[in-house]
């Protein structure tokens, strides 16, 4: 089945005005500068003076020139005591130690993997930062180096934690926990990283038998729910299962639940709505109440209705 639509004549969030210019201009500048120092929740953009550098310290998204703190990105001005920062509206993932990320192996190198994690450089996963078969305490062997692709190969997805930074700013990951490791039984959804906030837990389970990993780099893994018991206990570490590429048997209803959740995430992300556990659950329940097909979620009006319904509840 195929259906044709038109491009919108006026993209909704775009600025499209047709204006005539005259020789003489009016001086209606937008006034963003607050005389009393930077106020919060205000938008600014590159080149705008925020405050004097005598009274404030510059944070991320700003620079100092001529004793003035000036914004270098478009975003909201924030102030913590004397520190002024501009949080960008949109940017690539900016890692911090302890962050949970989902990444894709880009390259296998001697004793380490390079991992694409939607950041400014590929992340590094050292062979010494992963659990190897045969117990956690086992020494690293030379044979491990030769069979690195049996653990992770190019294209593989994994969930890991940011452990440290190298001198050049690249992040180093580790998967030394049973919660981390290779990802199976599901599909990946990519959203702008700013839409994933730091939450109590980034491992969510929806009652529809679906697990979600809301990684802070905007890579979201939606998969079949795996029972907690299977994961517990250090002794229960089973290398075969951890590094397996085989999916479990996934029944049809789980599969369609996964697709539904993935579509919901796409809709929320396209409306630039930050993802939280409660929001996702509400959205899922709303679509179930509507008794709708998974593919109706692809329609624009349906998506708008969903957003209107869940946002009003907030």
């Amino acid at each position, binding site marked *: 089945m195929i259906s044709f639509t038109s491009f919108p004549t006026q993209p909704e969030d*775009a*600025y499209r005005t047709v204006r005539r210019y005259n020789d003489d201009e009016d001086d209606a500048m937008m006034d963003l500068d607050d005389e009393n120092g930077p106020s919060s929740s205000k938008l600014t953009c*590159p080149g705008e003076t925020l405050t004097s550098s005598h009274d404030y310290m510059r944070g991320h998204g700003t620079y100092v020139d001529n004793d003035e703190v000036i914004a270098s990105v478009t975003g909201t001005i924030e102030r913590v005591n004397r520190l002024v920062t501009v949080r960008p509206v949109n940017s*690539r993932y900016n890692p911090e130690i302890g962050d949970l990320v989902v990444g894709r192996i880009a390259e296998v190198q001697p004793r380490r993997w390079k991992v694409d994690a939607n950041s400014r450089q590929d992340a590094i996963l050292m062979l010494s930062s992963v659990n190897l078969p045969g117990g956690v305490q086992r020494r690293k062997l030379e044979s491990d180096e030769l069979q690195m692709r049996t653990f992770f190969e190019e294209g593989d997805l994994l969930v890991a934690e940011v452990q440290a930074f190298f001198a050049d700013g690249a992040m180093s990951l580790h998967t030394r926990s049973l919660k981390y490791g290779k990802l199976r039984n599901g599909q990946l959804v990519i959203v702008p990283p700013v839409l994933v906030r730091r939450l109590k837990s980034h491992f969510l389970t929806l009652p529809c038998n679906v697990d979600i990993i809301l990684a802070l780099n905007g890579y979201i893994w939606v998969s079949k729910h795996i029972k907690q018991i299977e994961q517990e206990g250090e002794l229960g570490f089973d290398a075969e299962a951890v590094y397996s590429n085989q999916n479990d048997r996934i029944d049809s209803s789980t599969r369609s639940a996964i697709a539904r959740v993935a579509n919901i995430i796409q809709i929320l992300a396209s409306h630039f709505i*930050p993802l939280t556990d409660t929001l996702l659950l509400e959205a899922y329940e709303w679509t179930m109440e509507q008794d709708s097909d998974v593919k109706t979620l692809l329609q624009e009006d349906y998506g708008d209705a969903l957003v209107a319904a869940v946002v009003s509840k907030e």
Partner: protein
Amino acid sequence: MGSRIEILNEAGFRSDGRRQHELRDLNIDLSRHGEADGSALISHGLTQVLVSVHGPREAKMRSHTFHDRANINVEVTVASFSTGERRKRLRGDKRILEFAATIKATFEPVIRTSLYPRSQIDIYIQVLQQDGGTLQTCINGTTLALINAGIPMTDFVCAISGGVHSTSPMLDLTTLEENDIPHVTVAVMPKAKKVVLVTMETRLHVDRFEEILNLARDAGSILHREMKEAVLNRSISLVSTAGPAQLREKGEDDMNVDY
């Protein structure tokens, strides 16, 4: 080669009905495009350009990285149907390479590359239609796309073309005018009040040059206002749905994340 059309008639109108210092309609669309981190579709009159910015990201070739800053890579593609006469330009075309190098040189000092050592920022420019002022449109589009991608810059870069018909200076030239009169393209940083680029391929009297440069600076600040408004409007629409949580959240950063 004389044109049949008067560049500036006695009443002070140009061939498309504009006054000497009048700019063409400016159209900016900042909605997301494809996989790009930031993009902008911009048109000055009939000249239309799509700019996509990818990065900062891992450099495709390790030889292209710097240990202390990001590498900026500019690639320009010109659609063969963009001009009146169809013209197929290949990737290696000298003029296009030079054009890309000009844009790279314009933005290198403005982007705060030192924040991203070993990374690469790719700027892909697709020229869709040309009716004069291609360089200015590419530069303005690149500014917007970079800002849209959240890449730190010290300032906007606003570019405008200008020319002189006998002794009368004019702004924002069409192809017809570019073919007939000496012209320059000037890019300014409106906040810092600095000129970052001046290109001229024709001869121009020194006195006229100064005049046109001053005019271009003024026009740059007008463009700045429009571009800023476009950026802020888009940001407002995004932030409004993202909600106040975005503002509150920063304080919780150092909170331990409990897995």
